[in-house]
């Protein structure tokens, strides 16, 4: 490889015809350029989708119940089941290393709420402290429900800012005031706002324990909400979420005497399912981009191969002379291959460099919901470099073999 003589030979041959070398390089350089830009855009789309899903609690899992659809152990179909506090605590304990946030939710719609002369009808929701995070809501004033509130069955509520506006005009005045909801007096401890919209801002969150005490719903805790701690990759997070769901649902079916094949009774939703669709779509796009890029590169390689063949043809006489002087076939092959690899590698690097430069400077300028920070990582850059060297070798091989088979007697025949 490090043979000064051969390098000299190559530089001589290249400098002999600069235009031809330039055109040869252009085909590979632009191939790599297109490949890298496409991969960068693919990556940008991936980043865009990821950032969109990061906004919601990405790995939110919700479980609720419906009537059973199959007979089991002598129990009729169409039987109603309800989750209990034990079900919830089981999951929290069993998966305590994986569960990031957990809450129950028990809702009652249309709770008539009054403060002095103002009134409105809102949803009353029994929840736990983690609910705030799971709803992606933030506090405008005061605090959310605490563990102590749960323990003490405190009659306190954190209200949506829409309710605060309706009842108090100015939400800052709401803290510490008492409101009547369904005839029960609650102390307002906080005002939250939810980015979801008006409907999400018309809820009265009260401690779950208070809710079940008021409505005597000890045997029905409502829906179960969990978020799981994220793993380093989407696939791992997704796998963990799916494993959690399938194990937990199996447990719930057994516990509530639901037929193992009854898919209706235990219902669930995972926010990762949505993300998964986009991720799969994105992977297809990535694959597609790789495909197009590689095909472009192949077109470049064919171009190089073609031009190398012409070079061999032009240098037939020279190769004949070299062979007459004692050049062995392998030295001729090495000479042509070396030149081909050299040209593809150098021009490829230029294409790589220009495309990285473009991504570096133009990338952050792209203001689109779907493309964020298009870039390629180091691994991809290394892969393309390897691709380049391989493609140089492929491009040069056929012409080189052709050159090595030139018979000096024919090459040297005087015209």
């Amino acid at each position, binding site marked *: 490889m490090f043979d000064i003589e051969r390098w000299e030979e190559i530089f001589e041959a290249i400098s002999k015809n600069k235009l031809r070398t330039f055109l040869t390089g252009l085909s590979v350089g632009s191939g790599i350029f297109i490949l890298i830009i496409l991969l960068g855009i693919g990556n940008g789309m991936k980043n865009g989708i990821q950032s969109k899903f990061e906004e919601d609690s990405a790995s939110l899992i919700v479980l609720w119940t419906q009537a059973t659809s199959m007979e089991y152990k002598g129990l009729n179909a169409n039987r109603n089941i309800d989750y209990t506090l034990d079900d919830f605590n089981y999951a929290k304990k069993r998966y305590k290393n994986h569960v990031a946030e957990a809450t129950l939710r028990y809702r009652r719609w249309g709770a008539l709420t009054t403060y002095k002369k103002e009134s409105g009808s809102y949803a009353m929701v029994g929840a736990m402290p983690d609910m705030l995070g799971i709803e992606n809501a933030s506090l405008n004033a005061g605090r959310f429900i605490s563990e102590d509130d749960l323990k003490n069955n405190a009659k306190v509520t954190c209200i949506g800012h829409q309710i605060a506006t309706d009842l108090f005009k100015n939400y800052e005045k709401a803290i510490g005031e008492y409101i009547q909801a369904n005839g029960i007096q609650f102390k307002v401890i906080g005002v939250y706002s939810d980015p979801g919209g008006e409907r999400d801002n018309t809820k009265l969150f009260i401690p779950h324990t208070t809710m079940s005490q008021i409505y005597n719903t000890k045997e029905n805790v409502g829906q179960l909400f969990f978020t799981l701690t994220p793993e380093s990759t989407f696939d791992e997070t997704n796998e963990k979420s799916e494993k959690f769901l399938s194990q937990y649902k199996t447990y719930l079916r057994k516990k509530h005497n639901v037929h193992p094949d009854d898919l209706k009774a235990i219902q669930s939703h995972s926010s990762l399912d949505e993300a998964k669709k986009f991720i799969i779509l994105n992977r297809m796009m990535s694959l597609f981009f790789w495909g197009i890029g590689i095909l472009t590169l192949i077109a470049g390689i064919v171009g190089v191969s073609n031009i190398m063949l012409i070079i061999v043809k032009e240098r037939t006489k020279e190769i004949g002379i070299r062979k007459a*002087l*004692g050049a062995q076939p392998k030295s001729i092959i090495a000479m042509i291959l070396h030149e081909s690899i050299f040209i593809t590698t150098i021009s490829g690097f230029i294409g790589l460099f220009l495309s990285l430069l473009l991504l570096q400077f133009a990338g952050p300028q792209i203001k689109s919901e779907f493309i964020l920070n298009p870039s390629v990582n180091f691994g991809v850059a290394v892969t393309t470099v390897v691709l380049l060297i391989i493609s140089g070798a492929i491009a040069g091989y056929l012409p080189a073999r052709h050159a090595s088979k030139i018979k000096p007697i024919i090459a040297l025949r005087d015209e």
Partner: protein
Amino acid sequence: MIEIKDLHKSYQMGSNSLHVLKGIDFNVQEGELVSIMGSSGSGKSTLLNIIGILDEADKGTYTLDNTIIKNLSEKVAAEYRNKFLGFIFQSFNLINYKNAIDNVALPLYYQGVNRKERNEKALHYLEKVGLADWATHLPNELSGGQKQRVAIARALASDPKVLLADEPTGALDTKTSYEVMELIQNINDEGKTILIVTHEPDIAQMTKRIVDLKDGLIINDTYIEPVIAKAHV
């Protein structure tokens, strides 16, 4: 040095077979200066190609410096050409983007000689042909006679057993031809075996032995007293 027995060679021209060499018996001793003459189509170039291991005979034996040349792989053929033979062509066949000294050094490159030694040797041979001052010139800056002398220096560079010259004066005027022949005679005087293919009788007269070829057979093989080229320059 060269022993050839009953050598046959034919070429396939479409559906016809062209029998070019029809049984050549031919020996050359070390230090001889031989010219092979014949009209075009007599088979003289084919014979030279076979002697030069650029082509292979169909039948017969060829021994070069006690080495039987038969069924050689490309690799071994290249090795033998490099070790045993130096070529001089009618059209010089210098590599036009390499300067004189690099052209002369090329056979040494293929022998694996290192750069310093290669350039020393190449310069030595350029001196020998009187072109040391032109070492860094490209072939297109040289006259025909100078080019041929560079080619001769290149042929000598690997110190071969035999020099093979195919119409070495074919592209040169008479005066330059004689100058080249003078150089060849001098090299021969130093003991190098030289074979020249030519169709010019005056050139043949400057060798020590003339072999006449006609229709693929040797019809005449005579030793002569060579005309000294120097006297005609």
